C-alpha cells in the first residue's frame, strides 16, 4: 500500500500548475492564517485557559476574543452562545443528540431533509435506535426543500428540525427563515438546527434574524485549519453535553481548548468577513468562468443545483455523462487538478451521492458528477489552467467508454 502511494505520487512529478478545487473535503490553509496561528503554539497563550498562570490567562483572553468575533459574524446575542468543536461533524452530533435528549419527554420526531450532510443523516439514524423517529422532507430538482411537506410533517411530537442553510454538494441556498417560521408557527416547542458550514462566509448569515436555535460552522470550509468548527446554541437553551470530561471555558465541549486552531478559524473568519462582498464576488466570478468554460468545451453535461443567485457563489457540480467520476478524478489529478466525485464506484455499497439521487438525477449522472468549489484564493490563471486540461481528461475517459452501453 505505502509503496503504491509512493509510485502514485511519482506520476505527479513535474506538474507545472496545481489547482485544488476539492474544498468540500479539505482545504489549503493560506499563509496569512498560518502566520496568525504560529505564535500560539509556543510563544504565547499555550496554557490551559482555565488555569491560574500567565500562559493560561493569555489563552483565556485569546479564546474569549475569538468567541466574540465569531459570534459577531453570525449575529449571535453574546459570545456564550458559541461552542468550539473539533469540526462540523462534531458540532452536528452535539446539536442533534443534545437537542433530542433535551426534548425526549416532549416528543420523538426528528425532521431533516433528504439532502442533509452525512453527519446529520447518520446521527438521525443512530437516534432512531433509541426510540426517536426520522422524517425526511423531499426536495425539488434544484434541491430546494418542499416547504408544504415540511408544514404537513410538523406535529406535536416534533422536537427537532435540521436543515442545512446551503447544501454542501449542489450549493442550494435554502429558505431557512421561511422554514423556521413554518416550524415555529405550527409548534413553537420544536427546535431548529441548521448546518451553516457551507453558508458561513458565502452568504449573509444572521442566526437571530433566521430564528434558528442551533447552527453549525466549519473552519476548513472558509480556509481555516481542519479540526475546528463551532456550534451556535441560542442563549436560553439548556442543552447537555454529549461527551464527558473536564470542563474548561465551554460547558458543552469538555477537554482542553485548542487555542492555535481557534485563532486560525477566527483569522480565516476575519479574512472572509472583512471583505465579504469582494470575496464572494471573486468566488462567483471564478466559479462562473469555470462552469461556462466547461459547458463551452464539452457537451452531454448537466449542471446539478440551481443556476442563479439561489446558488452558493463557490459551488460547481456538473454531471459529465459517459464518463465515470472516479476515473475522472484520477485523470485530472495526473494533470494537477484536484476535484471530488459523487460516484459510488464500490460494489454492493452502490451509493452514489444521495443528494444527486434526491434531486432526481439518474445513477449514471451521479456516477459521472464532479464537485468543485472556488475560494477567494483562486486566480483567473487557475481557472484557465483547469479549462485547459479538463476537456482533454474528459475526452480521454469518454474514449475508453467508446460505445459501451450504447448498443
Amino acid at each position, binding site marked *: 500500500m505505502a509503496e503504491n502511494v509512493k509510485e502514485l505520487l511519482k506520476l505527479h512529478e513535474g506538474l507545472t500548475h496545481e489547482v485544488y478545487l476539492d474544498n468540500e473535503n479539505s482545504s489549503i490553509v493560506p499563509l496569512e492564517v498560518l502566520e496568525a496561528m504560529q505564535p500560539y503554539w509556543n510563544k504565547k497563550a499555550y496554557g490551559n485557559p482555565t488555569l491560574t498562570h500567565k500562559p493560561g490567562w493569555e489563552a483565556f483572553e485569546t479564546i474569549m476574543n475569538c468567541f466574540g468575533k465569531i459570534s459577531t459574524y453570525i449575529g449571535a446575542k453574546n459570545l456564550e452562545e458559541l461552542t468550539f468543536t473539533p469540526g462540523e461533524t462534531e458540532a452536528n452530533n452535539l446539536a442533534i443528540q443534545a437537542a433530542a435528549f433535551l426534548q425526549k419527554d416532549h416528543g420523538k420526531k426528528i425532521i431533516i431533509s433528504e439532502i442533509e450532510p452525512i453527519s446529520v443523516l447518520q446521527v438521525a439514524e443512530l437516534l432512531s435506535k433509541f426510540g426517536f423517529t426520522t422524517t425526511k422532507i423531499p426536495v425539488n430538482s434544484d434541491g430546494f426543500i418542499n416547504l408544504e411537506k415540511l408544514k404537513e410533517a410538523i406535529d406535536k411530537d416534533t422536537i427537532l428540525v435540521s436543515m442545512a442553510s446551503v447544501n454542501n454538494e449542489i450549493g442550494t441556498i435554502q429558505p431557512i427563515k421561511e422554514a423556521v417560521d413554518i416550524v415555529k408557527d405550527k409548534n413553537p416547542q420544536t427546535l431548529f438546527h441548521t448546518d451553516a458550514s457551507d453558508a458561513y462566509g458565502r452568504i449573509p448569515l444572521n442566526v437571530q434574524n433566521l430564528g434558528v436555535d442551533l447552527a453549525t460552522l466549519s473552519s476548513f470550509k472558509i480556509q481555516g485549519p481542519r479540526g475546528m468548527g463551532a456550534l451556535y446554541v441560542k442563549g436560553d437553551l439548556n442543552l447537555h453535553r454529549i461527551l464527558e470530561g473536564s470542563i474548561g471555558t465551554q460547558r458543552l465541549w469538555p477537554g482542553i481548548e485548542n487555542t492555535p486552531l481557534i485563532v486560525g478559524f477566527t483569522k480565516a473568519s476575519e479574512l472572509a468577513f472583512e471583505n465579504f462582498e469582494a470575496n464572494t464576488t471573486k468566488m462567483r466570478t471564478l466559479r462562473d468562468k469555470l462552469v461556462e468554460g466547461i459547458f463551452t468545451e464539452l457537451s452531454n453535461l448537466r449542471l446539478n443545483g440551481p443556476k442563479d443567485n439561489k446558488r452558493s457563489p463557490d459551488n460547481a457540480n456538473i454531471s459529465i455523462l459517459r464518463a465515470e467520476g*472516479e476515473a475522472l478524478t484520477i485523470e485530472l489529478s495526473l494533470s494537477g487538478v484536484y476535484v471530488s466525485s459523487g460516484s459510488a464506484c464500490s460494489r454492493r455499497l452502490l451509493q452514489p451521492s444521495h443528494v444527486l439521487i434526491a434531486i432526481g438525477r439518474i445513477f449514471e449522472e451521479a456516477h459521472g458528477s464532479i464537485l468543485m468549489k472556488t475560494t477567494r484564493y483562486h486566480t483567473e490563471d487557475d481557472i484557465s489552467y483547469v479549462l485547459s486540461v479538463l476537456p482533454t481528461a474528459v475526452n480521454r475517459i469518454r474514449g*475508453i467508454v467508446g460505445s459501451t452501453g450504447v448498443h
Partner: protein
Amino acid sequence: MSRIPLPYNPKIMDLFRNPKNLGKMEDATVIAVAGNPACGDMITFYLKIDDTKQTIEKAQFESYGCAANIATSSIVTEMIKGLTIEQAWNNITWQKVTEEIGGLPSVKFHCGVLAVGALKRALRQYFTQKNIAAPSWLPHELTFEEKQALEEEELAKTLSKKQKPEAET
C-alpha cells in the same frame, strides 16, 4: 461517498493511462457486455475467434468505469490472446486476473469479477451464436463471475425502478 483510500499499484495505473487493446473491433466474432452504467461499471469485450483452431486471435475492450475496471478489462484482453476457447475458459478466473494485475484494493475485487464475467459470457455466446453444440468442458451452470455480473445487472434494474421518475419541480 466511498472514503476508502485507493492506492492503486503501478500496473493498474499504467493500464489506466495506456490501456492495451482498447476500442471497438469491427470484425469481432463475438461481442459481450456485462454490468450496467447505473452501477458505474460496464464492460464490452470484442473477440475475434479462429473457427477452425477455436483460438482467440484478437481481443479488445471498451469500458465505462473506474481505473480498476479499465485496467482489469485491459489485462484480460492481454491474458487471453492466443489461447484456445477452452484454455481461456479454464484458466481465467477473477483471482488470476487480480494476481496478474498485482493486486486490487478489496473494494475493487468486483472489477476483476465483472471483467471475467464479461469474458465468460463472450465465450459461451460463441457457441450459441455459431449454433455449435456446447463442448463437454463447458458447464451448463453459470460460473461465479457470470452470476455476479447477472446479480449486478439485476441490482441496477431494481435501483432504476426505485428511483423516482422525475423530482418535483
